[in-house]
């Protein structure tokens, strides 16, 4: 069973994403911000991280991803953003995120990415 952690400060996103991933048959947990995400990850040890770029407080999505990669180097990170600037893309490439998902996105698109991520994880 693949463990997926969803981090978003928007409650509706959390709720929807949790439902979608759960329906895919994965073990899923949600966090409201970066600190919360790190807290959960320490005990949950996710294989896939779905994180919004822009979070409240100081930590952004990449910060969270970097910390969690420290816990699990094989972590697959999926970044979601409403404002996909060029700078952001470059940073994400440099970080070698697994996928870069722009809002608004199709749920199938998300499912496909998560599927690929979990496949690579199980392999």
């Amino acid at each position, binding site marked *: 069973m693949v463990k997926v952690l969803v981090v978003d*400060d*928007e*409650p*509706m*996103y959390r709720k*929807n994403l949790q*439902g979608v991933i759960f329906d895919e048959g994965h073990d899923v947990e949600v966090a409201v911000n970066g600190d919360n995400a790190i807290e959960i990850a320490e005990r949950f040890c996710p294989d896939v991280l779905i994180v919004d770029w*822009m979070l*409240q407080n100081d930590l952004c999505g990449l910060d969270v991803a970097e910390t969690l990669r420290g816990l699990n180097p094989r972590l697959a990170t999926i970044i979601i*953003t*409403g*404002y996909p*600037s060029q700078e952001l893309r470059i940073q994400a490439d440099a970080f070698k995120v697994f996928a870069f998902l*722009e*809002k*608004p*996105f*199709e*749920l199938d698109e998300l499912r496909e990415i998560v599927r690929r991520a979990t496949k690579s994880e199980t392999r």
Partner: protein
Amino acid sequence: MVSTEEPSGSEARFAVPGAKAKSWKKGRPRRIYLSVGFVTLLIAATMWYSLRTGAHMTEVYAPLVGAAMEIKLEAALGHLWFEEVISGDRHEDIATVWEHLERSAWYATAMLEGGQSPESTFIPLENPGLRREIEEVLRKITDFRAVAEERFAAKERAAIGTEVDQRFDALFEGFLAQADHVETSLQLLMASELRRFRTVQVILIAVCIGMAALVAIVLGRYDRKRTQALLDLHASEENLAITLNSIGDAVIATDTDGQVTRMNPVAEALTGWTATEAVGRPLTDVFQIVNAQTRAKVGNPVEQVRSEGVVVGLANHTLLIARDGTERQIADSGAPIRGHDGTLAGVVLVFRDVTEAYAKDRQLRESEERFQMLFEQAPLGYHSLDSEGRFINVNQAWLDQFGYARDEVLGRWFGDFLASEYVERFRERFPRFKAAGRIRGAEFAMVHKDGSRYIMSIDGDIGRDEQGKFKQTHCILRDITEQKRAEEALAKHRDHLEELVEERSRQLEASRAQLQRAARLASVGTLAAGIAHEINNPLGLILMSAQRALEKNDDPKAVETSLRRIKDDVKRCARIVKSVLQFSREQSSDKWPVDVNQCVRRSEEFTRAYADRNGVQLLFECASDLPAVAANPTELEQAFVNLIHNAVEACGDGQTVTLRTERAPVGVRITIADQGRGMTAEEREHAFDPFYTTRQLKGGTGLGLSIVHGIINEQGGTIDIDSQPGRGTRVIIELPVEVSENSKE
């Protein structure tokens, strides 16, 4: 005080004045003695002449007169006796007659030839006329005797009245007449002689008186001159004394034996002897001198002068020991005093106290040495030029600077040490420097012995002699080569910098245009990013909800939930678009005088319900005496509403938001204070940035405070936030009272 006597007193004390006193004695006395002798001789001669002439007249004329009378008497007696004889008187004889006649003739002859009678001595007459008269008388006597003899012979026959008798009588008459004539002539001659004698005597007396008068005048003048000379001598003597006493130097005069004859008050002061005590004493008693260094007695200067006979300067370092033992450094000289005939009459010593001068001299010498040391060791070059510009002096620093030895420099022309292009400048400027007496910062390139060039800055002044004429220059040289190089480099650098600046300015000008364009793009970009983020979020949710509804179309409840969410998110998008439009509006709204309190009350109406819903209490504290401010009331209300909303949201249940209006120094102050969670420094810093929000979860767009900020700025006011986390937030707005030009009543 004036005396005709020799001024023996002063003469004895000081030998010199004698020379003048003797000079006037020389010629005059001889002349005076000569004239007195001459007058005496003249008087003697006159007297002798008078005596001699008187005697001569007595001796010559008295016997002659007697003789003339005797001639007549004897002849008359002869004639008388002859008449008697003729008349026959017996008592008488003819011999007696002849005797009388002969006697008469003898007297006549005696008058001519001289002779000696018992009574008188006759001196021969010299007057030729008278002699002829007497010879005539003698002839007549002879003739008369001849006739008398003839008549006596014819005595019987010759009676009275005869021819012989008549001849006889006639002859006698003739004889008498001639004798009378002689007598008369003699008397006339005597009178004439007497007159001449008197005349001569008168003349001689007059001459004597004249000569006497002359001698008297000469003597008088002589006396006056002598008196004057004595007065002069005395004055000169006094003058000399005063002069001597006034001389600043000490003066002691001695005679040839070395005994003090005279000394002045300065000498008295220095020796400690008074003149009265010192005069007559040996000089060595009064004037004790020793060598200042060896303390050996110095020889008697009088001896030295006397033996050498010339002026002698006494040795330096002579110490005079005064009577009371005081020692003084003196400078002195001795000179011989010579009489008018050149013989040594004494010695005069002149000396002065140079103790102080010696001390000063020593100080001066020390000062000179110090100066010399400073001069030589000075870090700056120094040189001194004469009027032609030739070196008189240079110091070591100068020589070190240019690599020369002193003897290679002194006497040479300054221009020889200049770089060739500066030689003319020096030639032209040097006279100006001499005239002005001062020069500052003159720059010359000078050449080192090894050929290297140095730029020197020269400060100079000139030294003058006692007449104020140019004597020499005093110049200090400063090596400014490095400074010059640095200045040149700096100038070059500056030029380069200026070029750079110009270039940069051009570039900046170009980039400013770019920047303006970029800034415009950036602000659009920022806004776009915000819009993208704010809109994409709800759009994402809408899309997600729609998909979920489609996927779960078998569950009507789930579909309905999804559709409601879609509705909410669409509204949210619409709200964001509206705010963006408001934020980006281009034209400012109109303004007019507004009662701030009224705006506050209206905003209360819009926010009261919201506050109640959140359990927050709203308090309004409005001052009553507020002036109107220039503003757009709708915009102002919107600002207040936004701020009250923010405050309420920050507060927890039961907390209070207070809105206060009051007068401010320049207008009206509105303060909105809450008791909420407060803001961090970072939040405060970004509070007015568009799309910066801490309430994303509650639907905050991040544009509220940005819009408030824009509105307040538009009204000409200011807005500040005073807040700390946990201690609430105060937003302070100040609006000006001034009514702007485009305001409406």
